[in-house]
């Protein structure tokens, strides 16, 4: 790794830590930075401050970092696998498939077992199914535009089905279903973090596929000639990304554009090999979602803007900009 690249990695980690500390201190109730360190060390026993830091803000910050990192690293891996810089777990329907299955679970099964694990598992199933469906469409038609269009259709179907579910669900269920459509980190607690801590493991597993993902960007035939078993690589990447995205959806709802924008920014500034793109996307994705969430809960405090709305507001225009700039060179 060049020195330049190493410096950028260190900067990313520095900003992530610095913003985490900043994010611990700001909000409806301000906590000074010395107080934060005192609470984290356990030497401060002001109950309210310690409650705010340990039970509200710290889990929320960790959740933002984990989920943002998971979505961005998955976006990077999926873009490599599909050989398309515009693929994104939310764009091709994976996130909404996961959200639909999550909503189905909440409305039909969650009445009996209100378990977070069941919800995550159900979302995973939905994410997996939609990824396979989109991939199959792409394989039959052979073009990436077919896949993106299939994603558009799946998104529409999933949103419609979630809408239908809202008619037959109770008020409480309705509120949690609505929460998915927006994407919010407001429900963060330590139970969420236990599930979300799978995400760093998934990112490590994705990083181990870097060389093979590099090969597949040349084309599937070329990857075969470089000794890569394309089929098994595809299965592994799909399972891993569906898992990461579904965990994210189960815990925070659909957060769009992080998976698209972040790998792109990384390629622009740090290069395109997946050895760089996957870990750097994870760091930057975590940082961006954390920044967006901090903004979301401080801009209109004590109310808050769901983070999914913010990422869509910022990511949407950026996406249009990307398409206009690419002038047809993106193969879609």
């Amino acid at each position, binding site marked *: 790794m060049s020195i330049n690249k190493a410096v950028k990695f260190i900067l990313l980690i520095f900003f992530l830590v610095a913003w985490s500390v900043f994010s611990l201190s700001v909000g409806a109730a301000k906590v000074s930075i010395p107080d934060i360190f005192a609470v984290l060390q356990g030497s401060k026993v002001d109950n309210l401050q310690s409650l705010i830091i340990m039970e509200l803000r710290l889990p929320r910050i960790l959740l933002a970092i984990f989920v943002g990192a998971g979505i961005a690293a998955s976006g990077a891996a999926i*873009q*490599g696998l599909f*050989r*398309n*810089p515009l693929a994104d777990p939310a764009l091709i329907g994976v996130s909404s498939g996961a959200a639909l299955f999550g909503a189905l679970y909440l409305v039909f099964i969650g009445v009996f077992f209100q378990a977070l694990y069941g919800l995550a598992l159900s979302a995973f199933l939905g994410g997996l199914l939609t990824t396979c469906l989109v991939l199959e469409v792409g394989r039959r038609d052979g073009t990436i535009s077919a896949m993106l269009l299939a994603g558009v259709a799946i998104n529409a179907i999933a949103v419609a089905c979630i809408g239908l579910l809202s008619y037959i669900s109770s008020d409480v269920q309705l509120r949690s279903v609505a929460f998915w459509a927006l994407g919010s980190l407001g429900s963060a607690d330590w139970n969420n973090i236990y599930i979300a801590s799978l995400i760093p493991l998934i990112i490590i597993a994705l990083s181990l596929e870097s*060389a*093979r993902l*590099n*090969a597949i*960007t*040349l*084309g599937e*035939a*070329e990857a*075969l*000639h*470089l*000794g*890569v*078993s394309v089929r098994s690589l595809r299965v592994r990447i799909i399972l891993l990304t569906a898992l990461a995205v579904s965990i994210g959806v189960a815990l925070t709802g659909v957060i769009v554009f992080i998976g698209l924008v972040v790998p792109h920014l990384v*390629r*622009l500034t740090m*290069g*395109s*090999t997946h050895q760089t793109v996957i870990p750097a996307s994870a760091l930057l994705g975590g940082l961006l979602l954390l920044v967006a969430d901090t903004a979301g809960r401080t801009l209109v405090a004590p109310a808050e803007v769901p983070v999914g709305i913010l990422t869509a507001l910022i990511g949407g225009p950026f996406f249009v900009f990307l398409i206009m700039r690419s002038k047809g*060179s*993106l*193969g879609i």
Partner: protein
Amino acid sequence: MTLQLREVSFRIDSKLLLSNINISIQPAKIVSFIGPNGAGKTTLLRVASGALSAPGVTLDSKPLKALTPEGRARKFAFLNQSSELNFPFKCLEVLHLGRIPHRTSRRCNERIVEEVINSLSLDKLVDRIYTTMSGGEKQRVQIGRILCQVWDNIDSAFVFFDEPTAELDLAHQLRFFDTVKMLAARGASISLVLHDINLASRFSDELILLKSGKILAIGSPREVVTRANIRDAFSVQAEVHHLSCRPIVQANSVIKD
């Protein structure tokens, strides 16, 4: 090392794409597959390189299938007509992709890439971004990539090119064949699919003329490029001249049935 195809047939569903192919691909030789569209040239190249698997393909009398994908990738390099790479890789990074099947050290990989850069004069391109290059430059980088793949055992390597000159101008074509001759001189076996019979005739040691999945003629360019063969394979009336012992074809008219 010799790559042998014995009575090789290949079908997809019920369509017979290759039937009863017998050829052997030798070290230090340049072999070109020629023939009309749909004759099975590319299929034959893929079968020979192991991308499509068919019984009857052996490497030193061992079935090609017995090799692991990685093991095969260390000996066989294949360049498709055009690359789908649309990520902004640096040229240097593209060259390093050729080292993926190898478990050699980073230092060794860097040395090999450096040598390939020097021998193909790619030094001006190394820091450029692949997606911003012209077709000819991309082609040179891709050739560099597959050379990196087999550079450390070039004398026992098999290198396959599928219509490598289709998008190249004259200067790039000549430069490409210089590289091919250099590889053959170092002992590599080169197999090419070419549309341009005159290029094939000029630069190949052996020509294989295919039609409808069968070998119509095989041998030196002089033996293969004849009026009768051209008529049978392409259904055109053609004149065949000879320029420094190499036949040149000029197609005159299509034969109407």
